[in-house]
């Protein structure tokens, strides 16, 4: 289904629920994986995903169509993740440029984490990155979003996004080559 047809359904009160079912079909899996990579545990990702879709349902009339619908959805999800991480860290605001000291603890505490060698190495590399670097890398490498989409979602300058991604890519390649994964 095309995005404008879906939006027509979502913005008509008579067909809003039907449109929302279609929207869930299209985006909820991808949104889940994006959130999961940020908050790490399944239970947290589930809570954030639920909150994200409630916000999407309540706010769809306010969507001005200046960006793609998917970009708008991921932006809401991203903001919900930041809100969640801020509450979780009990700090004023989560520091995007510092790395997460609890990264490994969160992973091992999650029953839905398969701790095999490859994933452990990958997470070890990711845990050394700042939250901002990790988010940008995840969105580009795993979610295959375009640089301009990542820029819109995170509210960061596109050139900063590009330079951050290429720097992280270089670090990861080096680490992987050194450990000959």
């Amino acid at each position: 289904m095309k995005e404008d047809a879906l939006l027509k359904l979502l913005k008509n009160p008579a067909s809003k629920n039907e449109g929302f079912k279609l929207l869930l079909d299209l985006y909820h899996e991808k949104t889940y994986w994006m959130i999961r990579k940020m908050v790490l545990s399944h239970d947290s990702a589930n809570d954030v995903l639920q909150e994200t879709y409630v916000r999407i349902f309540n706010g769809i009339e306010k969507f001005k169509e200046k960006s793609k619908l998917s970009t708008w959805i991921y932006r809401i999800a991203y903001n919900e993740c930041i809100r969640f991480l801020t509450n979780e860290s009990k700090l004023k605001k989560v520091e995007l440029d510092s790395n997460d000291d609890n990264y490994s603890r969160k992973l091992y505490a999650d029953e839905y984490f398969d701790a095999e060698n490859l994933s452990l190495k990958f997470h070890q590399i990711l845990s050394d990155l700042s939250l901002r670097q990790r988010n940008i890398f995840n969105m580009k490498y795993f979610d295959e979003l375009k640089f301009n989409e990542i820029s819109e979602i995170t509210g960061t300058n596109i050139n900063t996004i590009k330079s951050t991604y290429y720097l992280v890519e270089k670090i990861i390649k080096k680490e992987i080559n050194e450990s000959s994964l």
Partner: protein
Amino acid sequence: MNHHYKKLGFKIPDNYFKEFKKKTLVLITKNNPQVNKNYSFSFYQLSIAAIIICTLVYYTFSSSNEIETNFNSDSPIISTMLSDEEITEEFMIEYFAEEIVFDQIYIPK
């Protein structure tokens, strides 16, 4: 999304996405019951409604104008006022003779 995310070792419960969708739809529907009326009107329906409204407005105003102008223009005072003439005593006497005196004096048949 590509297959690389499998490298991260994340797992999910069985049927998680199906269950999530079901649960979210129940939550949404409970808080926002479906609106059954369809408010999307066609151009044809809107045109018909506009014509009816315009017709009603036209007849309402045209009949009210008739009421406003429906007076006895033979009355000397009114015809005088309309023609911007000065209202003289003669007119007044004639007016009261026609409009008031005859109405109030009992004339046995």
